[in-house]
């Protein structure tokens, strides 16, 4: 998943206590003794960038060349940079990579093994859930995180009964829960249809809908 070895990625300008062996090979899976815990990105261990200011988004795009995650507004307003951290959706543009030491990040590239499509990706194709495609990776990662929140009974602003333990994925619930992901092309109807079809099919969601 990662393109090439860490040495090519320029993760470090010079020696540092956090340095891991950089021999151009696959990144080490285990943390060398005396070195900070790395971030796991799509299953592979990656060292924390030297510059504290580096966002998780820039680590993905600029240093690991995982360009599937998009930089839209870079200020937390559009959702294009959404990734999953330990299964929860977050905005990688507002996340300092240094804060995610020891955590497991999954970006659009890591949702499925190489060459396979996630059911939601197939549904986006079937429902024309995009035009230019720039918001699509964020929409997909966000929807997967959203579905997990719904499964565990997290209420939303449009949930009438806060005491309810399950909620159905109605159109209103889906739109409210996905409001952090903007599409400037206007493909929202296709996006909503793709998400509804994908997650209405899973047993847990069907149960919640009853």
């Amino acid at each position, binding site marked *: 998943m990662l393109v090439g070895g860490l040495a090519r990625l320029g993760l470090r300008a010079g020696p540092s206590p956090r340095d891991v062996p950089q021999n151009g090979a696959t990144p080490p899976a285990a943390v060398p003794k005396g070195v900070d815990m790395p971030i796991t990105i799509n299953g592979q261990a990656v060292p924390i960038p030297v510059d*504290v*200011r580096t*966002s998780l988004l820039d680590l993905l795009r600029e240093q690991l060349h995982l360009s599937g995650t998009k930089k839209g507004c*870079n*200020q*937390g307003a559009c*959702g294009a940079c*959404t990734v999953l951290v330990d299964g*929860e*959706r*977050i*905005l990688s543009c*507002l*996340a*300092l990579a*240094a*804060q995610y*030491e020891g955590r497991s990040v999954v970006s659009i590239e890591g949702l499925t093994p190489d060459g396979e499509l996630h059911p939601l990706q197939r549904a986006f194709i079937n429902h024309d859930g995009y035009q230019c495609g720039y918001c699509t990776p964020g929409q997909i990662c*966000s929807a997967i*995180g*959203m579905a997990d*929140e719904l499964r*565990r*009974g*997290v*209420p*939303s*602003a449009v*949930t009438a009964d*806060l*005491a309810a333990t399950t909620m159905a994925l109605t159109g209103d619930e889906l*739109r*409210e*829960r*996905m*409001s*952090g*992901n903007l599409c400037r092309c206007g493909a929202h109807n296709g996006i909503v249809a793709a998400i509804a079809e994908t997650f209405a099919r899973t047993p847990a969601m069907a149960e919640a809908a009853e």
Partner: protein
Amino acid sequence: MTPLSFARAADTAAAIGLAGAPGARYLGGGTNLVDLMRETIERPQALVDVTGLGSAIEDQADGGLMIGAAARNTAIAEHRSVRTRYPALSRAILAGASGQIRNMATLGGNLMQRTRCTYFYDDAAGCNKRAPGAGCDAIDGFNRIHAILGASPACVATHPSDLCVALAALDAIVHVEGPAGARSLELVELHRLPGGRPDIETVLAPGELITAVELPALALAARSTYRKVRDRSSYAFALISVAAALEVAEDGTIGDVRLALGGVAHKPWRARMAEAALRGGPATRSSFLAAAEAELVDAAPLSHNGFKVELARRTIVAVLGELAGDAA
């Protein structure tokens, strides 16, 4: 570029020690501070990550609820005790930001977030909050989103939090620790009105860290709610918001009430004048209107936000009417 260090605090004492470094700032989920750093409005030299500190949400023996300052917004909003005993808090959180941001943002960070005044963000504009003495371009500018209560000639910015408005209504207590020890204060005393120093936003001393927020036992809080009025129905800051709890006696009079407003001032606005007007009176629409008038009597709208006075009046009446149900 300003040098910047990063350290993850292992416990509260360590955090306070690390915060003694020059230019140090506590860092929660980063949803506000990271953005402000990128805009160079905030220029810390040291970041002290406090997201690993207390985040537990625990029922208290006296019937209250203690929430660790590192608790994420989603965790608070979905907690069973919050949903059933303090629903206004759950509703307020869910009305704010997006699912992604609520998963990142912490309780302490929400309390410490800075205004969304567009002139504060625009470094070509005069802003006494960003650059003390530079003047306020919002006062004679496009001030549709600005304050109508408690503002000063130096600053008309509003506090952007939804969560804090619910906390203000629910009598929340903020627990802090700092170099001089631990103390607690009412949430409504945490934030300042701008006066001549809008750059000083809270009463916290240098190095003081919010460690927890306590919701006291409050029976009427189980009948509380939050309504937010904004330009679009989701993912936008409040023009006006109302958090309220209401207890109506069998004879139709108001036993007790809590009311707070958002989007109107430099701090979450506890509407004590309205509460005083309501207590003991009939739970009727005309009382709700009179109470709203009592709170808004000192409202001083700017050139573009006169609508907020009427919007606040109507939203207060609507929310109290909703809570009164058949009684109104």
